[in-house]
């Protein structure tokens, strides 16, 4: 009875394999070997060709598993190694699975593994795969309870699994939409050790060029009222790099203090907001978020640094949805001495030519605005080239770039600009982020990919604050207006992933382009409504649907729903119960039998009504006449005519009720016990 049915075993083995598939991106090879071994071994055990492992075998297996986990993840404690540990545990459980209880534990482990797969894979197709996995696991779970023949068992289990999932769907949706999405209960140290592509905290000018050939999505954004700023204004700031050591730009942690949510800039109602937008950001493993100029903190976990960046309290390890707000006015009106110092600092004795040029320009322009305009003109009019493949620069790289090769990518121009500005005594800094993006007309969102990564400069102008200057725009205006691909020459543009010859030609074929856009839209909607459904989205949904957004009201709603559901089910049961005996005379008849049972007259199996009435008459001689009459009536009305019409039913009911009343009046305690009757019957 506690054996695992054969069908269930097969399903469990298959399900084991299926749950591993979702971990395909990070599970190391030895574990696949281990899985194949365990599954085959367990099958041979079932066939009786191998014995169940004894404790020495089990101990060795556990030891080997632990060693495998330790060495393939080089002893690091990360999400991947934790999952590998669970996989090993499930495989070992599979090996020693003997009873139904073991099988339950295995199914639960498989469900858990399936769920943890979603920490790594979140595409819509993986979502479908998860549903299939859930269904298959349920089939396995149900087949554990079935002891019927194989094919029937699978069919029944499949039917019930489908019924379970379909019937559960509405409740699941309600819970999904209404269950309070609170923040993490504790901060988890266990994070994935995979590397994310994207910007980094320090940058040498060649880095962005490497990033710019990646076709991966960095984030998607939509704008309130579809008020999309012009493409030339879509500068998504991520990082401010204000330190330069002659080679690498990095950002100084010491300089920035953070204004966390709630943001006082949004506190008074009279703020002027230039833009409202929503961003779904791919994980970076870092704390920065992407924002347009002059951001304000509109999310609970976010804050604004003194350098005007939007950051998150924790690193962004999962796809994140947030609202962004752009203010009209920059919040920083003056520069402290420390900040001025920091943004003027240059490594000494480097790039003498550039310094000389800066000094010369400083003679002509005492204002930052004029200075930057002159520099832009310089870049525009001199033979500078915008290229993904600049030469390697050595010592005095700014000099080499400015006066020798004049070939560079956005970061080179920005670096040169900042260097010159600082050398001329104007506070300036490097900013990295993304510029532009692809607008989806059908679903109104912007997709920003890694090849939209960009670097530009900001210069301090007294009275205006930090002002953006993008020297790339002077060299390659196409980059800012249309995107990287159009700004590069063909042979370079083909370096960008997904923009190879075929990919580029695809864009020119109308319907293929449409198809690609449809795919993008699907991804976006999936991200928007499924993956990044969180507290803020939940609140806005509640505001839209129920006209209120606070949690108390939501809990009340949920409670109300549950109570309503129970009431509904209860009344359904009641109605069905009453409907089950619709004919009143049959109900009356059942009550009569119930009453007689209390007097010791049972209903035998297969006993006809008249037969039963005879035994009632025997037990209650006073009722003999009534019984006979009723028996006659029943025989006549129920058995001799095809259908009992309404009047006859009424008549029957009346007679039965009469008999019930008589029975009540003559009812006496059954002195003669059944035992005694038994003996008497024997004596007959």
């Amino acid at each position, binding site marked *: *009875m506690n054996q695992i049915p054969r069908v269930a075993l097969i399903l469990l083995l298959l399900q084991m394999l299926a749950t591993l598939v979702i971990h395909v991106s990070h599970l190391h090879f030895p574990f696949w070997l281990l899985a194949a071994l365990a599954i085959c071994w367990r099958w041979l055990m079932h066939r009786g060709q191998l014995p169940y492992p004894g404790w020495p075998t089990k101990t060795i297996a556990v030891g080997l598993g632990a060693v495998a986990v330790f060495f393939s993840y080089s002893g690091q404690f990360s999400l991947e190694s934790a999952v590998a540990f669970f996989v090993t545990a499930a495989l070992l459980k599979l090996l020693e699975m003997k009873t139904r*209880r073991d099988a*339950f*534990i295995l199914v*639960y482990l498989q*469900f*858990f593994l*399936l*769920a*943890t797969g*979603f*920490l790594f894979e*979140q595409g819509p197709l993986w*979502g479908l795969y*998860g549903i299939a996995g859930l269904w298959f696991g*349920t089939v396995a*779970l*149900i087949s554990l*309870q*079935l*002891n*019927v023949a194989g094919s029937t068992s699978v069919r*029944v*289990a499949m039917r019930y699994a489908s*019924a*379970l*999932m379909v019937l*559960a*769907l509405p*409740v*699941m949706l309600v*819970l*999904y939409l209404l*269950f309070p*999405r*609170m923040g*993490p*209960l*504790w901060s*988890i140290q266990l994070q994935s050790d995979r590397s994310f592509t994207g910007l980094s905290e320090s940058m040498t000018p060649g880095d962005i060029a490497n990033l710019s050939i990646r076709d991966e999505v960095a984030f998607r954004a939509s704008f309130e009222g579809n008020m999309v700023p012009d493409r030339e204004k879509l500068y998504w700031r991520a990082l401010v790099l204000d330190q330069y050591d002659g080679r690498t730009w990095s950002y100084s942690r010491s300089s920035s203090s953070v204004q966390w949510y709630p943001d006082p800039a949004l506190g008074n109602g009279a703020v002027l907001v230039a833009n409202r937008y929503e961003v779904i950001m791919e994980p970076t493993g870092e704390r920065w978020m992407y924002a347009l100029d002059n951001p304000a903190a509109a999310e609970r976990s976010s804050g604004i640094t003194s350098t005007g960046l939007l950051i998150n309290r924790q690193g962004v*390890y*999962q796809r*994140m949805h947030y609202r962004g707000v752009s203010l009209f006015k920059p919040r920083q009106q003056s520069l402290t001495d420390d900040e001025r110092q920091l943004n003027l600092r240059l490594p000494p004795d480097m790039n003498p030519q550039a310094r000389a040029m800066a000094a010369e320009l400083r003679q002509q322009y005492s204002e930052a605005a004029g200075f930057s305009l002159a520099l832009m003109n310089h870049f525009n009019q001199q033979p500078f080239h915008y290229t993904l493949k600049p030469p390697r620069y050595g010592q005095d790289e700014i000099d080499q770039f400015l006066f020798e090769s004049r070939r560079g990518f956005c970061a080179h121009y920005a670096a040169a600009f900042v260097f010159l500005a600082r050398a001329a005594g104007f506070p300036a800094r490097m900013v990295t982020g993304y510029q532009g993006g692809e607008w989806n007309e059908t679903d109104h969102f912007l997709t920003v990919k890694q090849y939209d990564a960009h670097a530009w400069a900001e210069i301090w102008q007294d009275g205006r604050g930090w002002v953006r200057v993008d020297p790339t725009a002077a060299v390659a205006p196409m980059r800012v207006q249309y995107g990287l691909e159009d700004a590069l020459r063909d042979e370079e543009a083909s370096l960008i992933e997904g923009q190879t010859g075929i990919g580029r030609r695809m864009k020119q074929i109308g319907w293929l382009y449409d198809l690609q856009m449809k795919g993008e839209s699907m991804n976006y909607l999936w991200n928007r409504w*499924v*993956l*990044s459904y*969180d507290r803020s989205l939940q609140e806005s949904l509640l505001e839209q649907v129920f006209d209120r957004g606070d949690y108390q009201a939501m809990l009340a709603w949920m409670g109300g729903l549950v109570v309503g559901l129970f009431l509904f089910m209860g009344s359904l*049961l009641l109605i069905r*119960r009453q409907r089950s005996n619709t004919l009143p005379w049959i109900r009356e008849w059942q009550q009569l039998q119930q009453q007689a*049972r209390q007097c010791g007259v*049972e209903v*035998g*199996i297969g006993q006809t009504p008249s037969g039963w009435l005879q035994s009632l008459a025997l037990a209650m001689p006073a009722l003999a006449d009534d019984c006979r009459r009723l028996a006659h009536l029943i025989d006549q009305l129920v058995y001799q005519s095809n259908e009992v019409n309404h009047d006859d039913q009424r008549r029957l009911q009346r007679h039965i009720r009469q008999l019930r009343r008589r029975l009540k009046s003559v009812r006496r305690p059954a002195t003669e016990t*059944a*035992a*005694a009757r*038994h*003996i008497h019957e*024997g*004596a007959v």
Partner: protein
Amino acid sequence: MTASLSLRERLRALWRIRTRRWLDKRIPRQREIRLSQRSIFILPSAAGWVFGLLLLLLLLTAINYQNSLIFAMTFWLFAMGGVAMYLTFRNLAGLSLATHEAMPCFVGDTASIPLRISADGRYNRYGIQLGYPANPQRQTDAIAGEVADLHILFDCQQRGRLQPGRLLVESRFPAGLFYTWTHLDLDVGSLVYPHPEEVPLVLSAGGDGDSLPGATLDAAGQQDFRGLRPYQAGDSLRQIAWKQLARGKGLVTKEFDRDEGASCWLEWNNVSGDVETRLSRLCGWVLSCHEQGWLYGLRLPGVEIRPAHSEGHLQQCLAVLALFRAPGEEDI
């Protein structure tokens, strides 16, 4: 209840009595019962509680990693658990169980209690386990609209009216997360006779010479010698043809015609020992008298059945033996 019983034991006994009384009221003894929410109980099974733990773990994972897909999977599993509860309940609800009189049996035998199961509604019921406590369980499925007959085994240890207690009908189908059950007090209504003791019946007077105390011979019948047949295990020693054995012709049994007309009284006072021993011996004698075709009567304190020989007479005698001073049968 003595003072030596600890408070815990007393409370437990009290609890047992209370629950039995409550059950007797809620699900009274019946020949036939249709299971409904009145008679069906349901609780999460051990696997169900562990499933709850799994859900909690998944929820924590979903919250801490802010992962919508894990949220969705958690809620789906949770809702499926709820649906599974209903489906598990439904697996028993609407099931009709009926019994009729089981064949009487002797103490030490296994009674097989007939049970008729039918399922109403449009769906089949799977994985229904039936069995009396401490007796073998059997699993069955009930196909919608069909009637299935099966037998439940019960090891009879107690003489008297067959009281197997409450039949446990349970099911965990479909998901095994919930355990639904009912305790049915089916009115089996058959008797358990005393264990027949195989002591050769000896007539105390008359007969053919031997006189051991046993039954009182009322009238001797004619025993006509019919012939010889090979010995079979169990043949009485008295019937063995010793002379044939002595002549080296092997073990042969003398066969007689039935003792037509032999009549005897099987008496309580002729046997000694406690009640059960006496009844056992009398039961064995009743059976052997019946087999040998004698007329026999039964005399117990307060009960007298006149000598006769018929199937009905046998049943009557055995019934008296079964119910004599049996627990719960004070009125005899």
